[in-house]
Structures are given as structure tokens and as C-alpha cells.
């Protein structure tokens, strides 16, 4: 008895293992049924021609993949995703950083500003879509009203109905929604910035831009990379806001891979083809997510050192 006592007793270890299994079993069952199983089926769906009705659909090999890579609409949607990723990553990063720096030393009212700027991020996408489609309304919308008032009425257009502006109009909405979130992350990172270094730089009569570039940014680089990757990964699987505001229209102009996959599967009944496109989204976003994970792990190791 006394010998086993030095480490964990065998009884304890056995009790722990039993409880551990009891604690995780319900979760594992749920995840297997509603995640694991459909995920594997997804691969199966992509090599058959399933229309949602036929019990045993015909095996078609890589036909869906061939169709996908030769479908100009897929490439168009993917290029929209890339536009979304580039603009939709850079702009919130920039705005979020500016907000965070503006808020950094503010004490009075800081909570109000923070809440106001972050609030859009917790709003349901449908509510955001509705409010912004009113702002973009061709007739009564604020945007066109303002343009007409300042004498730029010639620029007024139906922002969501015009194929050349639809994607960008939705993108602006998304940037508005995400900036406050980026700000919040930066604000928590700024708390760790060495203030003595900032004061030293200030005494050296550096400009604000110099201080941000040489003192602040190097110290929050890991967080900067992290936020970049988060928005980047999200850029491949963007769906809600585009689907709600334009449904990928007009005439597929604002289609992204997500809306195109959805339309194929649930409106055109090309279940297998839609699934294949959905797998493309997965294949594109997982590497980014893995990189993100790596960075995070490095971050947390650094965090423990400090």
C-alpha cells in the first residue's frame, strides 16, 4: 500500500480513467454523428452524382472535380473570395489598429466608444444586412441622399443591384462589422506594450507614426499576425452577409464560393456538385487554419515565458 502511494494510487488512476470516459462519451457520440459521419459522407458525395432523391447514385469518379475546375463561375467566385480576403483583411486591420490607438490612452468615455465600435460584431448578420441595404437603397438610402446633397448625384446608384458595385458594397458592410472586433484584440495586446519604451521614444521627439511603426507594431506583431490569419481563414468561408444582402447576385456578380455551393446544392439540386465546391472551400481554408494554430502555439509558449 505504502509503495503505490508515492505516485498516484492505482485505484485513483482507474477511477480517473472511468470518470474520464464517462465525461467525454456523450460529446464524442454527438461529434461522431453530427460531424464525423457527414464529413466522411462529403467525400463520398463528391464522387457520385447525387440529386437528393436517388437511393444509390451513380459513381462518377472525379467528374465533379473536373467540372469544378473548368467551371468559369467557380473561378469567378474564387476571385471574389480573393478580393474579399485582401480588402476584407487589410481594411479591418487598419481601422481596428487606428481605433485601438485612438482609444489607447483615453480614460473617460472609453467604455462607450469600445461598446459602440464593437457592437456590430455581435449583431446578427440578417439585421446588419437589412440595415445596410437600406443605407444602400437607390431611392431613399442615406448613401445616395448624401451623394446628391453634396452634388455628387451622378455617382448615386443602386449599390446592391449594380453588378460592378454589389460585391464591394457588401464588403464595406463586412469591414464595418469586423473592425471593432479587431480593435478589441489590439486593445488587449496594447496593454502589454512597454510604456517606458513609448515614453523614451516620445522624449526623443519622434512623430506618432514613427512611434507606432517602430515601437508599438514590433511589440504586437504576434497578435497582428494572428488577427490577419483569423480574417483570412474567414474569407474563404464567407457566406451569411453575401447571401443575405445579394444572394450572390445580380447575375452572379457577387457570388463567392459559399453562395455558389449553396445555390448549386439547395436551389439547383446539384447536391454532389455543391458538395465538391464546399470541399474546395475546406481545402483552401484548412492550411490557413493550421498555420494559425502554429502561430498560436508559439504565441502561448511566449506568453508563458513572460
Amino acid at each position, binding site marked *: 500500500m505504502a509503495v503505490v502511494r508515492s505516485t498516484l494510487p492505482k485505484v485513483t488512476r482507474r477511477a480517473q480513467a472511468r470518470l474520464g*470516459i464517462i465525461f467525454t462519451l456523450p460529446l464524442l457520440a454527438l461529434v461522431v454523428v453530427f460531424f464525423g459521419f457527414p464529413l466522411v459522407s462529403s467525400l463520398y458525395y463528391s464522387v457520385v452524382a447525387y440529386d437528393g432523391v436517388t437511393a444509390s447514385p451513380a459513381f462518377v469518379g472525379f467528374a465533379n472535380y473536373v467540372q469544378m475546375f473548368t467551371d468559369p463561375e467557380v473561378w469567378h467566385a474564387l476571385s471574389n473570395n480573393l478580393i474579399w480576403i485582401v480588402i476584407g483583411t487589410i481594411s479591418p486591420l487598419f481601422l481596428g489598429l487606428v481605433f485601438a490607438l485612438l482609444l489607447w490612452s483615453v480614460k473617460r468615455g472609453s467604455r462607450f466608444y469600445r461598446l459602440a465600435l464593437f*457592437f*456590430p460584431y455581435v449583431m446578427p448578420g440578417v439585421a446588419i444586412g437589412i440595415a445596410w441595404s437600406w443605407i444602400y437603397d437607390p431611392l431613399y438610402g442615406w448613401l445616395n441622399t448624401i451623394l446628391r446633397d453634396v452634388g455628387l448625384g451622378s455617382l448615386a446608384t443602386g449599390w446592391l443591384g449594380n453588378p460592378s458595385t454589389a460585391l464591394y458594397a457588401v464588403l464595406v458592410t463586412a469591414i*464595418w462589422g469586423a473592425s471593432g472586433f479587431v480593435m*478589441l484584440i489590439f486593445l488587449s495586446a496594447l496593454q502589454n506594450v512597454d510604456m517606458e519604451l513609448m515614453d523614451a521614444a516620445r522624449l526623443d521627439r519622434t512623430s506618432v507614426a514613427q512611434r507606432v511603426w517602430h515601437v508599438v507594431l514590433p511589440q504586437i506583431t504576434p497578435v497582428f499576425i494572428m488577427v490577419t490569419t483569423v480574417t483570412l481563414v474567414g474569407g474563404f468561408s464567407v457566406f451569411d452577409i453575401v447571401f443575405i444582402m445579394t444572394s450572390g447576385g445580380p447575375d452572379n456578380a457577387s457570388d463567392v464560393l459559399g453562395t455558389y455551393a449553396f445555390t448549386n446544392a439547395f436551389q439547383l439540386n446539384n447536391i454532389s456538385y455543391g458538395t465538391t465546391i464546399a470541399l474546395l472551400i475546406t481545402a483552401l481554408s484548412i492550411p490557413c487554419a493550421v498555420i*494559425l494554430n502554429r502561430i498560436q502555439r508559439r504565441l502561448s509558449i511566449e506568453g508563458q515565458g513572460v
Partner: protein
Amino acid sequence: MTAMTSRAPAMGAARTSGYRKTSKRERVNRVGRHTTLMILSLLWLAPMLLIISTAFKTRQDVQVNPFGLFTSFSFQNLVSAWTEGHFNDYLLNSILLSLPSTALVLILSTFAGYAFARLPFFGRTVAFYFVILGLLVPFFAYMIPLYFQMRGMGLLDTLPGVDLVLTTTSVPFGTFFMRAFFADLPGELEQSARIDGCSEWQVFWRVMLPLVRPGISALGVFTFLQTWNNFLVPILYLPGGSYRPLTTGLFQFISGRQIDIGPLAAATLITLIPVVAVFLVMQRQVAEGFISGAIKG
């Protein structure tokens, strides 16, 4: 650093004038900062103000001036969204979708998070990575086959079925989050509880669980908002329309042929009120949940 020390004496000589100058500049700076932040905050709140303003307009005013701010006041729109628009039903459905799934996420993640952090058993690492895979794989990857699987299981167009899907999509993050909380607790606590004669269950229930309460509440708020706002899951798996929650109810509203802006604004407001309430009352937990949500991806 050397530049600093060599400059220090000179600084002392010019102290008085230099000091006053910076303080004046600082004051201008502060006013500028507040003005900018105020303008930005208003810009960022503008869509919300637009929804509120339009929701409370009278019927005639909506027709001529739908987006002019606060030009009239009535409850007509709210009443018609609530009764004719069926948003009372949608609200109930939203509650029946987000509360049970949030509760389920909290229970499953807390138990599993504890096991993954502190109860070694055979196959634990593999099981953990399997659950965490859900953080890497986007919902798109399996949403389409899941539709037909749900149909086969008779869970399509049922609230319990969609509750389970919502739970599954949120539980990888929850487990990860709770595991981190349990892993941070000191091992001595566990040891001394065991010496005091606690069973493994009592160690968990009496000693460890009370210590992670802040984590549970942050996760709860985060999950509630995520499920309340979820659009894709109910639009996919509740296609029949008899259990429509607020989000897809709103979408149904805007995809109709003629849009009645007043009641639509009121319905949007109904959808937003719980979000605003949770957001204002539990600011800290919301921020904590979302920040760690990002850190996990």
C-alpha cells in the same frame, strides 16, 4: 538609451517652457481624439439608430420618409410584426433553439474539458484531437451531407434536431476553452482534496468546478450569441418554416415580393433586443469570449 541620458540635463534646463507646451498640445490632442472617437462611434451605431428610428415610425411616415431619423412615433410596426408577422412565434423558436443548445454546449464542454485536462484515460489525445478538428474544418465541409443525414434520421425540420446540430458546431470551441481553464488550476488542489477523502467525482464537482465559473459564464454568453445569431443552420435544417427562428424569419421577410419596411424594422428590433441586453449586461464576458474565440480561430 545613451541618447536619453545625454539629453537629460538639457531637458532639465528647458523644463518649464517645454512642460507647458506639451500639456497644451496634449489637451488639443485629447479633444481631437474624443471628437474623432465620437464621430466614429456614431457612424458605427448609425445602422442601429436607423433600425430603431424606422421601427417606431407611423405607417404614413414610413411611406414617404422611411429613413429620416426619428420623424414620427408609433407602436404600429411593432404590433404588426408581432402579430401579423408571426415574430412572436419566431421569438419563441429562437429561444427554443439557442437556450437548449447553449445549455448542452456548457454541460458537454465542461465535463469533456475537465476530462481532457485532468483525467488521463486510454485514447484521450486522439479523442481530443478529433473534437478539436471541428475548429479547423469549416461548417461548409459537411453541411450538405448533414442535410440528407438529418432527413434520414427524421430530425430535419425539428427543433431538437437543429439544437443538436447547433450544439455540435459550438462544442469544439467550448471543449477547447473549458479544457484550458481546467488545465490552469493547480494540481495541489486536486491532491489535497483527494487526501481529504474526496472521490474523483467530488474532486471535480466540489473543488474544481466552482473555480471555473467565470469561464463557464463567458462561454455561455458567447455560445448564446452565436446560436441566437446563427443563420445558416436554421435556414438549412428548418426548411419547412413551422419552426423558423428570428434570423431566418427576417430573411423570409426580405425575400418576399413586397417589403413592408416599417414592420421589417420592428422585427429586426425584436431580433436585436436580446443581443443588446446580453451585450450590455455581460460586456466583460462577451469580450472575453470573443477574444479567446479569435485566439482559437
